[in-house]
C-alpha cells in the first residue's frame, strides 16, 4: 500500500518577530514526511518545538516560508475556489481547550450551527439526523448531548463533540493538537479510543500532537519526534519506542512518568545536562548540540534525517555511527517477546 494522503516537502516556517536569535525563530525547519490514509501519526516534542506551527501550516492557517504541502497530489498553496473549500472540509483541526469552543450560555448543539450555515446549507433539513450520526461515531449518545449545556458535560465529552463536528465535513485528516492534555485520565482514553475507531472505521488519518509519550505510544502507528523545529526521529511507533535512536528521544523516554516503572535516580550533573548546559547553540548545527551528552565535532554541522532501519529514520551522527545497537530498550513490545 503506497498511497499517500499528504506529503510535506522541505517545509519551513520562519518567524521574524521572535525575541530569540536576532529576531528570527525557525519554528519548523525543513520538514519532510508523508501521511497515508488511515494512519495515526503522533507528533511529539516539548513546548516550543513547533508542533502547533506544523499543524497550522497543514491546516492552511498560515503560509510556509519555504517548501510545500501536497494533498492528494496537489500543492495546497495552489488551491482555489471549490477545491480550496473541499480541502478545508477534508483537513480539520481540533485544539487543546474544549471549553473555549463552547459558549456557556448556549446549549452545546449550537456548535454545529456554523458548519450548517457555511458548508451544509443544502442539508439543513436533515441536520439533527446528521449530527446524531456523527455523535454516535464518537461514541456519544445523542440524547445525552442535545439540549445540554456545556457545564453539564465532561471535557472529554465536549472534545468528542468537537471531533463529531469535523466528521460532518467528510474529514480525511484530523489535526488533533493537544486535545487531551486538559482532560482527566478517566476521560482521556475515550477520546483516544474515538480517534482509533475513526481510523479503523472511517479511514481517517490523524496527526496527534502531544507532549505525552505514553499516550502517543498507545494510539499511534507512526511517531515523529520534534526538537526546536526539526524532526529528529521518525518511524513506526513500535520501532521508535523499542529502539529509540536519537539522544533526545532516549532522554524523553527515560523521563516519561508511567505507573509501570520508577525513575532511575540520576546524579545531579547528569540531570542538568539533560536540558541545559554551558554549550552554545550552533547556528546551522544539530539543534540538540547544546544539550546533547554525545555531541561531537561533526555535530556542528546539521545532520540530515537518514533511514537506519526500514521504517525508522533519525537525524543524529552518533546514532548513525552506532546504528542504534547500544540503544536501551525502554518501552517493550509484545511483538518482540
Amino acid at each position: 500500500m503506497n498511497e499517500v494522503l499528504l506529503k510535506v516537502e522541505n517545509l519551513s516556517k520562519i518567524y521574524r518577530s521572535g525575541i530569540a536569535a536576532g529576531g528570527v525563530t525557525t519554528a519548523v525547519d525543513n520538514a519532510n514526511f508523508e501521511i497515508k490514509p488511515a494512519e495515526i501519526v503522533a507528533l511529539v516534542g516539548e513546548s516550543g518545538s513547533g508542533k502547533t506551527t506544523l499543524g497550522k501550516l497543514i491546516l492552511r492557517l498560515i503560509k510556509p516560508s519555504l517548501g510545500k504541502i501536497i494533498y492528494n497530489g496537489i500543492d495546497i498553496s495552489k488551491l482555489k475556489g471549490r477545491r480550496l473549500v473541499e480541502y478545508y472540509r477534508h483537513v480539520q483541526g481540533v485544539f487543546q481547550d474544549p471549553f473555549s469552543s463552547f459558549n456557556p450560555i448556549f446549549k452545546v448543539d449550537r456548535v454545529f450551527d456554523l458548519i450548517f450555515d457555511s458548508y451544509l446549507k443544502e442539508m439543513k433539513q436533515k441536520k439533527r439526523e446528521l449530527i446524531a450520526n456523527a455523535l454516535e461515531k464518537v461514541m456519544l449518545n445523542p440524547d445525552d448531548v442535545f439540549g445540554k449545556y456545556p457545564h453539564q458535560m465532561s471535557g472529554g465529552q465536549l472534545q468528542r463533540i468537537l471531533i463529531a463536528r469535523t466528521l460532518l465535513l467528510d474529514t480525511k485528516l484530523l489535526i488533533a493538537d493537544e486535545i487531551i492534555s486538559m482532560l482527566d485520565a478517566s476521560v482521556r482514553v475515550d477520546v483516544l479510543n474515538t480517534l482509533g475507531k475513526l481510523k479503523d472505521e472511517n479511514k481517517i488519518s490523524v496527526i496527534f500532537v502531544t507532549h505525552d509519550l505514553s499516550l502517543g505510544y498507545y494510539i499511534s502507528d507512526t511517531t515523529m519526534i520534534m526538537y526546536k523545529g526539526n524532526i529528529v526521529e521518525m518511524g513506526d511507533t513500535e520501532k521508535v519506542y523499542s529502539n529509540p535512536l536519537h539522544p533526545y528521544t532516549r532522554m524523553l523516554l527515560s523521563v516519561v512518568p508511567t505507573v509501570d516503572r520508577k525513575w532511575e535516580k540520576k546524579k545531579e550533573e547528569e540531570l542538568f545536562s539533560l536540558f541545559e548546559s554551558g554549550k552554545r547553540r550552533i547556528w546551522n548545527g544539530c539543534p540538540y548540540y547544546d544539550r546533547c551528552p554525545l555531541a561531537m565535532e561533526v555535530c556542528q554541522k546539521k545532520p540530515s534525517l537518514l533511514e537506519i532501519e526500514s521504517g525508522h529514520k533519525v537525524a543524529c551522527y552518533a546514532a548513525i555511527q552506532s546504528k542504534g545497537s547500544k540503544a536501551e530498550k525502554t518501552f517493550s513490545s509484545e511483538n518482540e517477546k
Partner: protein
Amino acid sequence: METLLKVKDYKVYYQTLKGHVKAIDGVDFFVRSREVLGIAGESGCGKSTLSNSLINIKAPMIYEGGEVYFDGVDITKLDVNKMRTLRYTKMSIIPQYAMDAMSPTKKIKRIIFDLVREHDRKIAEEEIISIARGRFKEVGLVEYVLNKYPVELSGGMKQRVVMVISTLMNPKLLIADEITSALDVSSQKFTIEMLEEFMDKGYVDSVIFITHDLSVLYQIADRIMIMYAGNVAEIGTTEEIIKSPLHPYTKMLVESLPKMDVQYKKKKLKGIPGHPPNLLNYPSEGCRFYERCPVKINPQKCKLQKPPLFEVKPGRYVACWAYAEGEKGE
C-alpha cells in the same frame, strides 16, 4: 512515626448565590513527618480547595467543621495573627498556577523580599537575598535570575524559582499544588528531583504533592490519597494504590492509565463513563461515586449513607461499603 498534620472530618464549602458548593465534605487523613503524601483525583474533586483552605480560608470559602492539627495544634481555632506567622514560615503552599501568578512588574528579588517580609518582619533584606542566592545556585539557577522579571524566564526556570521562594524559611510542610502539570517531561523530572533534594537537606520536612497525574505520583509519593467529589475515596502506600487499588473508582482510574505495553491496536483501555456530580447543594449523604459505580454493593445503602473510611488493614483506608464488615469484600 510522628504525625505532622492530622485532618479530621474537615469541611470547606463555597458560599454562592445559589447555595453551598460542598467542595470538601468530611475528609480524614494525616501526613507523617518526612513523607510525601500524594493527593490525586479528577478535576474539581477539591484538591486545590483542600490545600488552599489549610493555609488560608478566605471568601467565598467557608469553614464548615472539623479539625486540623498541625504539630499538635488545631489551626482551625487559631487567630488571624498566629495563623499569619505559621503560614509560609511553617506551612507553605505553592498554589496551582503560581508560576503564572507571579507579579509581572516586580523583579524576582522584590517578589522574594515582599513575601518573606509579610510573614517575618524582623529579617533583614541582605539575609533573605543571601539565602535565596545560595538556594538558586543549588538548583542550577544563575544569580542574575534575581534581577529578572518573571516573563523573562522559561517555564521550568519559573517553577524552580517558585519552589525556592516557597521553601526559603524551611517550612515543616510544603503543599505543592500541580507544580508539574504545565511542564515538559524533562522539567517535571527535574522539579521532582529538586523536591526530594530539598527534603534530604531538611529545607522541608513533609510534602503534600497534589496532581491529577497518578504516574507522576508513582515517582514521588510515599503514600497516596485518592479523592472523589470532595471526599476521600482511598488511602494507602503508593504501591498499594497503584498495584492493588480497592475502591471501585481507583480501580477504574488505574485501569484507564496508559501503560508501557498497551497499544490501542492490541488492547483497549477503558475510561470511566459519566462525570462527577455537581457539588452545589449536593446531599452529604450517600456515596458520591454511586452514579458511576459499577459495583453498588448494596444499592440502598450506597445511595443513602455515606461510606466511612474503613481501615481495612493498618494504614490502609477505603470509603466504600464493599469493605464494611459483613459485606462481601473484594
